[in-house]
């Protein structure tokens, strides 16, 4: 097999160019931790060397251990009997291995036993783990739970739970959805109440909970009796003890190793995270943003696995006397897959950086406030990164998971009939990837989350600056194409806004988000192309295809058949 870090040239390209200097300096408190923790870095160069070594370990485990077990994990799945969930054997072994390598406190601070690594690196790790086995990501990738505790809980709760997460002694579950509260979490009914001494308890049923059998649960519950919306919800942490009953696990299309539980809380003792009523509106939103980025990385990993299979098959499989790779239709599919993979990485690392920058500006703001210094400058920076992260996170989740689905679909297509058979890994990848554009918010919800930033023009200043830049040769032509896309976008956006019709805007949000995304990614690709001439080909394919799509979208928005005025019933009436 192979090391998914050292042997993936595109990941290496992204890793080498990633600029974390400012992020790491702040997170490392100017590199003062080395005195207390011998594994802490001495400077940025040392930190980057650590990162490379750590990711090499992840790449080795994912490529040489996890991937070997993935097929069997899928076949056996996790099982449920007598109220107990049992993980597939391979999955247990995978977790043990990740634990042995000390990779579970990835994002947590060192004082809680963590590695204190930024989200940007977590994305590399999640992609590689998911390439090995998509269902393992749902255990490894649940580190946002401990991160949420670290961000919002009291010192006592942090001291109690976080070291256990770091050592891998406990696993976590994010317990949000209910039978009648899926996308609409405001409808959560699980009740949180207090006894006379003020201790909290939970009662209620939760459904579709990934790893609901975990040792520690982060639970969204209604703490304010009589309320009906999100403002009555708070976030709690509790142990998965005897008062938490697993009622069943789901039989799913894919990610079969990851147990999806229906669970019931019977007066379960719990502790409040942060303050009351902020559960959904503050904490879960933050938690979900982290999880969304995780799912985007998961989709990317699955798609990479499917691409590698398809690429190899197209080379080896001969029909009509030549490898099928030599047929233009097959080659085009593979080229699109590769361009989608590489441009998705460009997007996700840019998103990761924005999220990390947001985090350090938060930390800086807290520090300055505590020191009684002015926060005017840092607040502006915070706002900038917040707006960008709030746009890029749903964009990443939406666009990468959709592309990943397409990549896995085409990977089967390239395999032909054999790809439909279970003997081939692409069949598994195709099933596994299907959830990525659904859970942690469907693509449709991601579009709704991203459209605000698009309308406000969060990246407009950046695009203005890019348009003034001097590009040379081919890059100049491509920059002109991007200008053209921007004109199409502006025309479409203006058209939508002038209609002053919310429904119409919702109907065409996806197209507007797409076009804005083309611009954002397109300019990043031009930067990459100045560093690596091969990347110019990727930029060219991406930007030219994007322009064709933008023309299509604009036509559809400005002159398409407006189905809002159509008689929906009449169209849908016949079976």
């Amino acid at each position, binding site marked *: 097999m192979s090391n998914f870090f050292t042997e993936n040239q595109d990941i290496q390209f992204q890793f080498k160019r990633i600029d974390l200097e400012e992020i790491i300096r702040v997170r490392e408190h100017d590199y003062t931790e080395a005195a207390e923790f011998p594994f802490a870095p001495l400077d940025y160069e040392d930190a980057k060397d650590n990162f490379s*070594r750590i990711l090499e370990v992840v790449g080795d485990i994912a490529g040489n*251990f996890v991937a070997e077990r993935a097929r069997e994990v899928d076949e056996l799945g996790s099982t449920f009997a007598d109220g107990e969930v049992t993980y597939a054997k391979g999955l247990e072994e995978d977790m043990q291995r990740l634990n042995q390598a*000390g990779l579970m406190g990835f994002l947590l601070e060192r004082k809680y036993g963590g590695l204190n690594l930024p989200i940007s690196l977590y994305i590399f790790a999640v992609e590689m783990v998911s390439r090995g086995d998509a269902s393992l990501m749902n255990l490894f990738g649940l580190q946002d739970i401990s991160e949420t505790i670290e961000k919002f809980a009291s010192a006592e709760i942090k001291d109690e739970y976080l070291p256990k997460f770091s050592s891998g002694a406990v696993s976590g579950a994010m317990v949000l959805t209910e039978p009648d509260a899926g996308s609409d979490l405001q409808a959560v009914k699980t009740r949180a109440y207090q006894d006379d001494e003020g201790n909290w308890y939970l009662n209620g049923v939760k459904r579709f909970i990934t790893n609901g059998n975990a040792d520690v649960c982060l639970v969204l519950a209604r703490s304010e009796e009589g309320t009906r919306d999100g403002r009555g919800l708070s976030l709690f942490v509790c142990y998965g003890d005897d008062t938490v009953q697993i009622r069943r696990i789901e039989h799913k299309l894919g990610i079969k190793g990851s147990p999806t539980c229906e669970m019931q809380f019977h007066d379960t003792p719990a502790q409040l995270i942060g303050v009351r009523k902020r559960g959904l509106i503050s904490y879960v939103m933050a938690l979900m943003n982290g999880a969304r980025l995780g799912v985007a990385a998961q989709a990317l990993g699955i798609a990479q696995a499917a691409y590698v299979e398809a690429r190899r098959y197209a080379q080896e499989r001969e029909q009509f006397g030549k490898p099928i790779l030599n047929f233009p239709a097959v080659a085009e599919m593979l080229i699109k897959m590769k361009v989608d993979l590489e441009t998705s990485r460009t997007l996700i690392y840019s998103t990761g950086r924005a999220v990390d920058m947001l985090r350090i500006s938060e930390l800086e703001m807290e520090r300055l406030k505590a020191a009684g210094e002015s926060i005017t400058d840092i607040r502006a920076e915070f706002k900038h990164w917040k707006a960008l992260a709030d746009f890029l996170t749903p964009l990443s989740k939406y666009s990468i998971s959709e592309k990943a689905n397409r990549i896995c679909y085409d990977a089967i297509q390239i395999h032909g009939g054999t790809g439909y058979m279970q003997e081939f890994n692409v069949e598994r990848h195709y099933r596994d990837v299907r959830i990525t554009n659904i859970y942690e918010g469907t693509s449709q919800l991601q579009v709704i989350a991203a459209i605000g930033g698009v309308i406000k023009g969060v990246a407009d200043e950046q695009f203005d600056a890019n348009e003034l830049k001097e590009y040379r040769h081919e890059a100049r032509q491509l920059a002109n194409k991007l200008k053209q896309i921007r004109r199409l976008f502006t025309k479409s956006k203006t058209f939508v806004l002038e209609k002053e019709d919310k429904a119409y805007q919702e109907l065409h949000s996806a197209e507007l988000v797409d076009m804005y995304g083309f611009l954002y990614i397109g300019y990043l690709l031009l930067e990459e192309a100045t560093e690596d001439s091969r990347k110019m080909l990727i930029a060219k394919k991406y930007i030219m295809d994007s322009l064709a799509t933008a023309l299509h979208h604009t036509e559809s928005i400005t002159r398409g058949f407006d189905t809002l005025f159509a008689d929906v019933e009449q169209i849908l009436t016949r079976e």
Partner: protein
Amino acid sequence: MPLHTIVLVKQVPDTSNISGDVMRPDGTVNRARLPAIFNPEDQAALELALRLKDQYGGLVTALTMGPPNAVNMLRECLYMGADRVILVSDRRFAAADTLATSYALHKAIQHIGDYDLIFGGRQAIDGDTAQVGPQTAEKLGITQFTYTQEVLNLDLKQRTIRAKRAIKNGYEILESPLPVLLTVIKDAARPRPFDVRKLCTYKRAQSKFEIQSYVDESHDLITLDQVLEKARADGLYIETWNIEDIDADVSMCGLAGSPTKVHKVENVILSGSEFKQVPASTEGLNEMIGELMQDHIFG
């Protein structure tokens, strides 16, 4: 006394990846052209030792005799969880055969002091002799289990160990009072991954050779002893021993201590041929020994 296990490890050329330009025209291997790796069966041995430590506590010491760059492998031992690593390295150890190697190792082990168990790989992939483990045990005068595939039980009260030893078409179970030297086959255990915290810590651990060259190249006025002391204090010094440190007799080491002489290297292509059944009787055995001596396989 906590359990103390010594693991014998060796850095070897990666003979599993031999390409054209690695072989010299005379049929010998140009080692410089091959990447150096941690001998796979020694890794399995270290893993077994670490599992016993996980279960019973105690300390694991990894010991190697080799060139200065064998320190890379010792760092890997630290990344996996060894508590102490020792590099026995001296030009005068060069060209040692198994006899001279086991002599030096047993002197180093005596210098380390008390121990309960010694693990080592069955053999190294560059020599395939499987002699160093057994010879070391002989020189130390302790029991040896070769071809160990599993440790079944360690009884620290009775001070005994029981292990499964692979034999052709099966296994045997052996038990012995401690101390015991066990040589381990590759299938015994899959080595654990590097612990990333240890990786980030011990990447800075250095041998005396490395510290010496750091001092030589430094523009600052520092002495070897100063840097050594600092590395020791930080727990980042990889102990480096020479012939005098382990109190070895120079004439028993390296080329001088190696009676093995390579007469000729030949490419042999093995081909299956008839086999002969020998009756399980004294006459049968005598007949077989006679034949083997006639073919110069014995004698």
